[in-house]
C-alpha cells in the first residue's frame, strides 16, 4: 500500500532536500536558536550514513545463483525487512524525513546494497509477537530487530550472525544512591520494556526483584522519573541514549548480560543464511561495520569501537 512508500529509500534524495529546508526553517523560525532539544539526529548523521552506503561492497554475480532468495530480491529491486520504527539509535523513524535511522536500519540497508547494488529497503514494522510468523510466511526477507539468538527461537527461524552483541544494564534516577549494580535490585521494583529481553533476563540476574513492564521506551523512562519503579533495565546503548537526553537519570554499573543479536531469516533457507553470514564477515573485515557502529551507537557509548562478534559463535546461530 501507498502508506509504506514513505519508508522506501527511493525518496532519499527528495527527503534530504526537504530536511535541509526544514532545518533552515526551524533555525529561522525559533528565536532562541539551538536551545530546542527536541529533534536529534538531523541532516549530519544522514550524510555520514550515506557515505558508508556509497562505499559499501556489492556481491558478485557468482554469489547470487539464479532462483535463490538473493536473486529474487535483486530482481524485485528492494529488500523487505522486518524492524521497528521506535527504537532510538537502532531503528528509529525520523518523522521529519520519514527515514529510518540507527544501527539495525543501516545494517539492513547495507545488506540491500550488497544484494541489489543500492540500499533499497522496504521496512515492515513488526512486533515481537509477529516476527516468527512473518519470516515463516516469507512476508519479510530478514528481521533486524535486536533479535536475541536463543535455541528455542532457532527451532522456528534461522539466525545469521550474531551481528551485534550488547547487554542489559541498569538505570536509576539521578538522586538514587543505594543501587549501584544489578545485585542491588533484589526487593526493588524494576521497570522493563514489555517484550524485551529484560523480561526473561531480570528474574535470573536479580531474583526477588519485582517487575513492571511498559509498552514503549519513552513510557518506561517517564515511569522511572515518576518513581513507578526504582530502576529501569534495558539494553545499555538505549539507556545511554536516554541518560544523554534526560538529566534526571543515570546508568549504573556495567552491562550484566550478553545479548547476541542475530538477523532473523526463514528457517529453511540455509543458502540465504550462508550468504548473509558471508556478507557479515566481509563488512566486519573491511571496516564498514565499525563505521556504522560509530555513526549510531557510538554517538552515546563511551570508549572505543568494540570488536564485532564472531559469526556463528552463539548457540542457535
Amino acid at each position, binding site marked *: 500500500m501507498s502508506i509504506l512508500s514513505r519508508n522506501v529509500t527511493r525518496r532519499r534524495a527528495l527527503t534530504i532536500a526537504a530536511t535541509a529546508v526544514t532545518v533552515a526553517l526551524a533555525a529561522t523560525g525559533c528565536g532562541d536558536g539551538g536551545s530546542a532539544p527536541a529533534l536529534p539526529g538531523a541532516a549530519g548523521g544522514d550524510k555520514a550514513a550515506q557515505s558508508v552506503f556509497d562505499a559499501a561492497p556489492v556481491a558478485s554475480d557468482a554469489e547470487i545463483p539464479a532462483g535463490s532468495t538473493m536473486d529474487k530480491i535483486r530482481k524485485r529491486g528492494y529488500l523487505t525487512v522486518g524492524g521497528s520504527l521506535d527504537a532510538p539509535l537502532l531503528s528509529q523513524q525520523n518523522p521529519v524525513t520519514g527515514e529510518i535511522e540507527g544501527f539495525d536500519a543501516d545494517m539492513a540497508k547495507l545488506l540491500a546494497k550488497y544484494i541489489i547494488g543500492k540500499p533499497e529497503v522496504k521496512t515492515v514494522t513488526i512486533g515481537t509477537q509477529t516476527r516468527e510468523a512473518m519470516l515463516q510466511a516469507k512476508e519479510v526477507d530478514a528481521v533486524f530487530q535486536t533479535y536475541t539468538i536463543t535455541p528455542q527461537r532457532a527451532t522456528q527461524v534461522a539466525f545469521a550472525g550474531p551481528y551485534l552483541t550488547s547487554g542489559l544494564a541498569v538505570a536509576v534516577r539521578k538522586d538514587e544512591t543505594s543501587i549501584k549494580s544489578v545485585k542491588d535490585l533484589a526487593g526493588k521494583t524494576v521497570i522493563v520494556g514489555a517484550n524485551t529481553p529484560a*523480561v526473561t533476563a531480570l528474574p535470573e540476574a536479580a531474583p526477588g526483584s519485582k517487575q513492571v*513492564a511498559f509498552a514503549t521506551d519513552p513510557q518506561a523512562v517517564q515511569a522511572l522519573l515518576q518513581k*513507578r519503579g526504582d530502576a529501569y533495565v534495558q539494553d545499555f546503548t538505549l539507556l545511554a541514549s536516554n541518560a544523554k537526553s534526560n538529566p534526571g537519570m543515570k546508568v549504573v554499573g556495567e552491562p550484566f548480560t550478553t545479548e547476541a543479536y542475530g538477523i532473523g531469516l526463514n528457517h529453511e533457507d540455509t543458502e540465504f543464511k550462508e550468504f548473509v553470514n558471508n556478507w557479515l564477515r566481509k563488512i566486519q573485515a573491511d571496516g564498514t561495520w565499525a563505521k556504522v557502529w560509530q555513526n549510531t551507537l557510538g554517538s552515546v557509548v563511551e570508549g572505543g569501537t568494540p570488536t564485532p562478534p564472531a559469526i556463528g559463535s552463539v548457540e542457535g546461530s
Partner: protein
Amino acid sequence: MDALTGHLGEFGHGLVTTVHMTVVTTIGALLLGVIVATLRICPVPLLRGVGTVYVEVLQNLPLLALLVLFVFALPTIGITFPLFTSAAIVISAYEGAYLAEAIRAGINTVGVGQAEAARAIGLTFSQSLRYVILPQGLRAVIQPMGTICIALLMNTSLAAAVGVVELTQAANNVNLVEAQPIAVFTGAGLAYMLLALLISRITGALERRFAIVR
C-alpha cells in the same frame, strides 16, 4: 502445545488478573454509567453539560491514549495512583461512558405513563428515577450492557501497555521465551472467548430473570 502446558502458572496468573480487572471495572463502570446517565437527564443545566462532555470526550478517544495520559500525565499535576488502580479507573471511566448511553437508551424505552404516574403520586425526580424509571430502564438494556461488558473484557488487554500483567501480557511473555505465537495466542484467545461466553450466559440469565412481560 508444550508452550501452553509448560507455562500454566503464568497463564493462570494472567487469567486471574484479567478476571479481577474485569469484575472491578464492570462494577465501577456500572456505577459511573448510572451516575452519568442521571446527570444527562437531570434538571440542572450545568450537570447535564458535565454529563454530555464526559460522554463525548471518553467515547471519542482511544482507550490506549487515555491510559497513557492518565498514567503519565496525571503525576505531573501531583496525582499518582498504583498501576492496577490507574488502569481500573480509566477502563471504568471509558466503559462507563458507553454504559451511560445504554442506560439512557433504556430510560427512553420506559413508557411515558410510568413517569407520569410516578410524578402523579408525588415522587420527586430522584425518587421516580430510583423506584420507577431505573429499575425498568435497566432491565430493558441488560443485553446491550452485556455487549459492553464483553467489550470491556477485551479492553482490559490494553492495561498491559501500562504495566499490568494480565492475560495478553502473560501470553506475550510466554511467547518471548517459547517463540510459538500460534499456540500461545490461540490459547489466550480461547480463554477470552470462554470468559465472553460466560458474560453472555450471565446476561442471558439476568435477562430471563428480570424481563418485563408487557
